[in-house]
């Protein structure tokens, strides 16, 4: 992507991003709250038209032909909007069919994905009754059902239990090992450090550092490298004299 910008009113949510993600890599986009991660991912995936800039995914210009770009990508947005009154099985089936899969193929793939994502026992329940983690997993299933070339995930493990998180981590690894590309945003540094081979740090709407994991860490932990780059905020709560068990 080149020169990606987006402003809301006077605020520059994304103030010019240039970023290259290699094919087959598992890339992480990390940054503090409000840094522009979600806005950037939305612009990369055709969900939010940028004020300026271009995004190319495997040669397809996202904003010249959003439908063509959406056909080759899968997206798990931060705020998942699903068809609440479908069951998990139906949701994945219709996700496949809306992406042009035949009914039989969609049903078969939906069953397999539900099995892998540990949702098989809840396949007949309405999505409206799913927990946050189950919704995330269902959304991941919807994003994978058409076997996308590139997968975008926004905070994929938020609200997901540790066992399911491990399943998703291994699934993403396997997906990337097969030659597909994964880009996900997170502010959980440990997760990014464990999973990603490429990482970009975004702050105040700009990419402040990008490279392989070793390049970005520079001998430190990713957490430390991130804090060194972005800096600490606030005074650590020194003003909260009333807070703590010693106060009445």
């Amino acid at each position, binding site marked *: 992507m080149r020169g990606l910008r987006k402003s*809301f*009113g006077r605020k520059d949510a994304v103030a010019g991003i240039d970023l290259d993600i290699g094919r087959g890599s598992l890339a992480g986009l990390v940054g503090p709250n409000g840094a522009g991660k979600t*806005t950037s991912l*939305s612009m990369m995936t*055709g*969900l*939010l*038209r940028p004020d300026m800039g271009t995004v190319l995914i495997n040669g397809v210009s996202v904003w010249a032909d*959003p*439908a*063509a*770009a*959406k*056909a080759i990508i899968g*997206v798990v*947005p931060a705020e998942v*909007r*699903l*068809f*609440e*009154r*479908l*069951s998990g099985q*139906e949701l994945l089936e*219709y*996700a496949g*069919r*809306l*992406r*042009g899969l035949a009914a039989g193929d969609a049903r078969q793939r939906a069953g397999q994905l539900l099995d892998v994502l540990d949702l098989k026992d809840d396949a007949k329940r*309405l999505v*409206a009754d799913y927990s946050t983690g189950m919704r995330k997993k269902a959304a991941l299933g*919807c*994003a994978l059902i058409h076997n996308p070339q590139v997968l975008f995930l926004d905070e994929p493990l938020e609200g997901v239990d540790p066992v399911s998180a491990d399943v998703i981590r291994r699934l993403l690894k396997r997906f990337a090992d097969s030659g597909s590309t994964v880009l996900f945003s997170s502010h959980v540094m440990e997760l990014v450090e464990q999973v990603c081979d490429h990482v970009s740090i975004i702050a105040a709407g700009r990419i402040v550092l990008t490279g392989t994991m070793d390049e970005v860490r520079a001998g430190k932990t990713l957490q430390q490298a991130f804090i060194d780059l972005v800096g600490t905020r606030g005074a650590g709560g020194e003003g909260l004299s009333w807070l703590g068990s010693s106060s009445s």
Partner: protein
Amino acid sequence: MAWVLVQLKLRLLLGALRASNAARVSFILSSTLALFLAIGTFAGLAALRHNGAAVDLTAVIYTLYALGWVILPLVAFGLDGTLDPATLVLYPLRTRPLVIGLLAASATGAWPLASLIGSLGITVGLAHGALAVLIAVIAAAVQVLFCIILARLVTTALAGLMRSRRGRDLAALAIIPIFALYEVFAQVLPRAIGKHELTAASFAGVDGWVRWLPPGLAAHAAQDASTGHAGTAVLRLLLAAAVTVVLGWLWASALSHALVTADASTQAATIKGGTLPFGRRAGLSGTIAARVLAYQRRDPTFMAYLGITVVLMVVVAISSLRGSHPEVGVLLSAGVGGASVGMQRGDSFGLDGPACQRAAGHGPRPGRDRRWPGDRRPILRHAAVPDGAAGGQPAAPAGGGLRDAVAGRPVRRADRNGDPGDPGHRRHRGNRLGGRRDPGPRSHRRRRRLRRPAGLGGHRPGGGPSRSQAARALPACRPQQALGSSHRAGYCGRRRSASAAASSAASSPKPTPIAWSSRRFSWCTSRENTSRSASVGSPPKGSARG
């Protein structure tokens, strides 16, 4: 793609039948209402045959249908998943097939079918002759298509707003015009018809402007065809279809925009905290009052109530002013308004009342702030009924709540100092069912001190055991008391459950053996309650530590 979206819509409708009982009942009621509307409208339109103002009335009815199609999807925005473009943004769908597919999906269901059946009433009411019937059928189809596309255009254009908090607030306020319309139909129209002030002839010029809207064009097309003006009829139909096509184009544009636009409608949604300084200066009572005032502006439910009150006052005033004693009408209107506002403030129905009702559940400070406006708690009054039933002992403390409920007597809130179901903590002032007179706050506090078990220990300024102590003491209390407390906690928070249970434990002279308690708790449906009862095999630590 269209067929997939139609199937999706049907699946979503079936999904409503598999949802909660309330959703199922709502779906069945909605479908039944659609059936009645279809039959009623068809019969009503058909009954206009040979009526001089038939075309005028038909145009008005068609226009009202269109209005209904615009308003109702906004009110029920979250119910149809296909209405929100955000559910489709992730899929590689091009606008043109998507519009066709969504149009087909919108035409699927009970309400579109009911609209079509009802609209076909003009084939009997207006059409005379084969050609006129054919034109009437096409006109009815154009009318329904216009309604659907208009509704889709409005919902798509407002989808971002409807997903936001402000949009949902506005949708809640839509109840005010709906109520006003209801009042017109239920109060004003029947009276006017009864006095022969409103007859079919009254609509004789109404369609002077309605006739140029698509619903009016459709109605007049059927009329023109019946009177031998087939050319005019076709022109009218073409004009209605052209307007519908333009609306469709606008809908497609709105859809394209919605698919690539983030919901930024809450970016400027800031609030003013004008009432909070008042709350800071006036203690807990002031805080509660400030919260009520803040909610008066920010909660659309309150605004809707006030709007309904204004509508009621206007209707009463207009009705009275037309009588022989207009001054009485004005007073009556003011009285109705005052009573309505008073009922809302008093939360007589205990549904979603002033903030003090809920804030009361979090245990106010002892002392002067304990007597504040939220003291009367109809929520607890209702809660007492299942308590008594669950306890199975009408004479048990929970049964006291039942007596209060039957007597309609307000029940003291369950704060950290007492369980309202416990007779030792109720304050009756000369009740009619034999309750003793309140001995006064002083002796009340002394009695409380005496009842505090040594095992709980630790003097607290508030006069009761700490919450952690209360929680530890829970297994040792009488089961029916603790059970009643846990039921009430479902309304007012878990912390109160422990506090109330501790008070019950405090008033219980002989703690029940733990094994028996465990058996009594074992049927609790709550997983947490069950696990708590399972853990009572060991002595309660609170008692040992005290």
